[in-house]
């Protein structure tokens, strides 16, 4: 079995994997980082969004081997020193989550949005979230949370 090596949440990891292993399964099953979720099998729901080399990617749509040598960030790496990232804090403050299953992918995706567009309007936020499905919130509070987080992150 080939070996893949990558940096995940700042730590270098190396594992022998079956070549068909998806990045999301590698993260969940090999690294036991179960915050990254699987909600579909057609790359639609976005529950598995992580950052690969700084941008959001659906971890179900990449092989682990494709992330060889990459920097991967998962939801577990977002809070620093026990402090929620402004995006996490805004989701909490504005009730942008209910069952929590889509939440890690939603938050990771939203962080990437704000990196690209520091001041997204409601329409831009809604368009960006095309690739993340939430069944609980109706998106109302997610949109609100992301706009507040963007403001916070602009400082």
């Amino acid at each position, binding site marked *: 079995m080939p070996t893949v090596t990558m940096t995940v949440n700042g730590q270098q990891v190396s594992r022998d994997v079956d070549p068909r292993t998806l990045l999301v399964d590698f993260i969940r099953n090999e690294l036991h980082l179960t915050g990254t979720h699987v909600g579909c099998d057609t790359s639609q729901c976005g529950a598995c969004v992580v950052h690969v080399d700084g941008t959001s990617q659906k971890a179900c749509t990449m092989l682990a081997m494709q992330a060889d040598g990459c920097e991967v960030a998962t939801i577990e790496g977002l809070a620093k020193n026990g402090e929620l990232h402004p995006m996490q804090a805004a989701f909490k403050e504005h009730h942008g989550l209910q069952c929590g299953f889509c939440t890690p992918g939603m938050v990771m995706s939203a962080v990437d949005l704000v990196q690209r567009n520091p001041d997204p309007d*409601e329409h831009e936020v809604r368009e960006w979230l095309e690739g993340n499905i939430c069944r609980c919130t*109706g998106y109302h509070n997610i949109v609100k949370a992301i706009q507040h987080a963007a403001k916070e992150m602009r400082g």
Partner: protein
Amino acid sequence: MPDTGAQRVLRKEDNRFLTGRGRYTDDFNRQGQAYGVFVRSEMAHAKIKSVDTSQAEQAPGVVAVFTGKDMEADGVGSLPCGWTVTDRHGNPHKAPPHWPLARDKVRYVGDQVAFVIAETDAQARDAAELVAVDYEPLDAVVETGKALNGPQVHEEAPDNLCFDWEIGDKQATDDAFAKADHVSKVELVNNRLVPNAIEPRAAIGEYDPGGDEYTLYSTSQNPHLLRLILCAFVLNLPEHKVRVVAPDVGGGFGSKIYCYAEETTCVWASKKLDGRPVKWVATRTEAFQADAHGRDHITTAEMALDKDGKFLGMRVDTIANLGAYLSNFSTAVPTYLYGTLLAGQYKTPAIHGNVKAVFTNTAPVDAYRGAGRPEATYVVERLVERCARDLNIDPAEIRRRNFVQPDEFPYQTPVALTYDSGQYELALDEALKMIDYRNFAQRRQESERRGKLRGIGFSAYIEACGIAPSQVVGALGAGVGLWESAQVRFNATGSISVFTGSHSHGQGHETTFAQMVADKFGTDYNNVDIVHGDTGRIPMGMGTYGSRSLAVGGSAILRACDKVVEKGKKIAAHMLEASVDDIEFDQGTFRVAGTDKQKSIGEIAFAAYVPHDFPQDVEPGLDETAFYDPANFTYPSGVHIAEVEIDPDTGETQIADWVAVDDFGRVINPMIVEGQVHGGIAQGVGQALLENTVYDPDSGQLVTGSYQDYTMPRADDLPSFRVGMTETPCPHNPVGAKGCGEAGAIAAPAALMNAITDALGTEDIQMPATREKVWRVAQQRLAPAAE
């Protein structure tokens, strides 16, 4: 709005979800675990001639392959339907068996045929491909409207009729129609939906041969009920030897209420493998194929009116598609959760409803968010709007003329329910104000100037929630009681553990229940821990569905709190050397009435566990359990108004505004309640605009089996919503709450379709009003008359 002391506090559960530390079923892995994959029928209807597992058994890593024959040999029972509906001739519904693994026939695409277990998930998937099933195809029927004349799905059910049920007074209704000045009529399709919780179902079955004990980790909304069904009906296991754990669950919406084939099979298989844990996680495709679906009615409804627009009588004929097998509560949904709600908010004096429930070669249909009540509201509110249009009466005004008035409660409807309270006009007035109804005509003109079609639609809904008084549902055929239980334990150091049979899968119980208990005992809500989802830790429970958690589960918690206070008074009386009758309790302090002698509940709790100075006739400990059985259903109600703008060139329906004014009785945490309303509306908008479950009428194949084919509402399909509330406390439960989880999904489809049909100027469009359908209708309406 009355001051309830309701508090918008942030959720206690959020940190773990936001940091990726939630623990969902698929996040658990047991020592020595093997992985199971189901071989599912590719045929809609077929005889199973043979199942050849030999090649699969030889595949790398395969541990075992089981079929229906193995389960049959082991005496595994049928998955039961827990509600017996009696038909109009007094006979029970047809109840054909539903085997966890099919035995001689498959009856829908996705039906379980074999279970392949291997060392890894990938090996199990590979081996499942090698199971060779020899089918003899049979003709299939998937369409609701064709079921009664279609190929027979079950030998036990001629004409595919499960039951032919009626409610209300037919003669009185016929008489009302005979004297009517006007009759309005609608023909409606209530489209089949797939609930689509984002966490797919999953299960780990684990048998411990040492203690002869079973553990099931499962994505369940009601672990105790799942255990009861599993033990009593399917696997014939002693209930005290089975533990069901439903940890964090990623949404349910009804689809995770039921005892399904898959978790049953995991538990049974672990026993067969002498204790090897067996894990199964559904793919999204499997969720589409084999989760219980929702809705799927076709209905004709008529209203008889006098010349002033007063409702005289209503007649409803519905065919309800139950799918290939009866899921646990499937029979109750189109009957006691539907027919009983046909009065809506109105004083219609005579109502008759007839429901024919049919089998088809499709996935089983059961309760999905709202369960019967969205279907009823859709019928009533589309029909009422139609009446207003036919008689040229303002849609708000026709509702006003027919509402049950605040001084008429308790109000006995002609369809069995007794409404307890409500202020329907108050909600309507508030909603009209919020949406600025007076200026709608101007907005419509402004849209017209831009070449757009604007419409407004109302939905004044009522639901029966807080499910439900056990004696009432027992008399109606329910196989279970619908109480809830709670245990409230003061720990010696003063913190509080609350064990509830309600289950939270997004509703925020860990916060709302903690707020309620903290308020009762005058402590911080962080001092209260809510424990749920584990039959090994919680005494008993009936779970979460039917917007029952706060109204029923919360009431049980309050009752247990009351018992804690009662016992605390005895302890305080001893410590303060006073009579029990003189002890008052308020906000965590026991006080001798009229004095400054007092003890905090923390001191009392400590004394209860360190009983050195303690009354002789009182047991140590401060830990009380209560069961609460509701006296009646609760009746949340409200008005939603949708305003849409349609682009006739593209068929795009833009939701220009949405106001919701709901009455949920007492609200504990408005932030959480509003979130429930938003989510419910989104699912209702999904039904009205986007979602549809399509089976190919010839082959019976599920055409909409993935997120690429089934249109889930996404962020850019939806607007922001404006939510208001009125608050009429429920008069018969200690919390005063009515329930809020389903309202949005109940109200929204009618509001939106009324708005769309208003904009298009025709009733001739069925849900989902997709862009294509709207475009076709708009083009027809706008086209110049034929030469």
